[in-house]
């Protein structure tokens, strides 16, 4: 495959990561996750009450490819905070359980964090507009 001088998908991903304090790349949407790992990550994030941007990587296989190249991380979901990769499902779940997730997100810890991330109510306005730009 010839080297391209511009890579619009990678540029759009980098821009989305830069423009959103908390952004999750996942399979499916927060309302309808298409993978158990994505679902668990969404549940942990929602339990913190932090609004987050979500990008569905499924519509175009190139999104997944470019994302993994950009982040040097092989799997999805991927959570970025302040432009930095925090982790996937394992790390996010572990950080939620230990209370570190709320620290990283800069929100108050819930009064009593349960052992497992419960599926919280969907956040009122999870921005999904990026999906359209990337598709």
């Amino acid at each position: 495959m010839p080297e391209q001088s511009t890579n619009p998908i990678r540029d759009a991903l980098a821009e989305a990561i830069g423009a959103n304090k908390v952004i999750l790349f996942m399979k499916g949407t927060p309302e309808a996750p298409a993978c158990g790992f994505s679902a668990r990550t969404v549940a942990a994030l929602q339990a913190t009450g932090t609004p987050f941007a979500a990008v569905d990587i499924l519509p175009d296989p190139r999104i997944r490819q470019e994302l993994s190249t950009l982040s040097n991380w092989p799997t999805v979901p991927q959570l970025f905070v302040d432009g930095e990769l925090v982790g996937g499902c394992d790390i996010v779940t572990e950080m939620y359980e230990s209370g570190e997730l709320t620290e990283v997100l800069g929100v108050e810890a819930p009064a009593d964090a349960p052992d497992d991330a419960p599926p919280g109510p969907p956040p009122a306005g999870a921005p999904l507009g990026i999906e359209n730009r990337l598709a």
Partner: protein
Amino acid sequence: MPSTQEIKQRIEAALPAATADVDDWTGGGDHFRAIVTSPVFAGLSRIEQHRLVMDVFAGEIGGAIHALSVKTQTP
């Protein structure tokens, strides 16, 4: 298709003084869960710790190994 034993051995061979407990998470031979203990993780962020383990299987995760769930700890 890698076995849990093979995954365990490869992690233990790649990381200094590491011990790994590996489960076949779903019984299907492609979703694995590894608990890895090594002094090399000390002082590293979680993402750096997990990368050390993921790098052992570079190119195989998402392929022959559909998913590898990792938990890292220091001895």
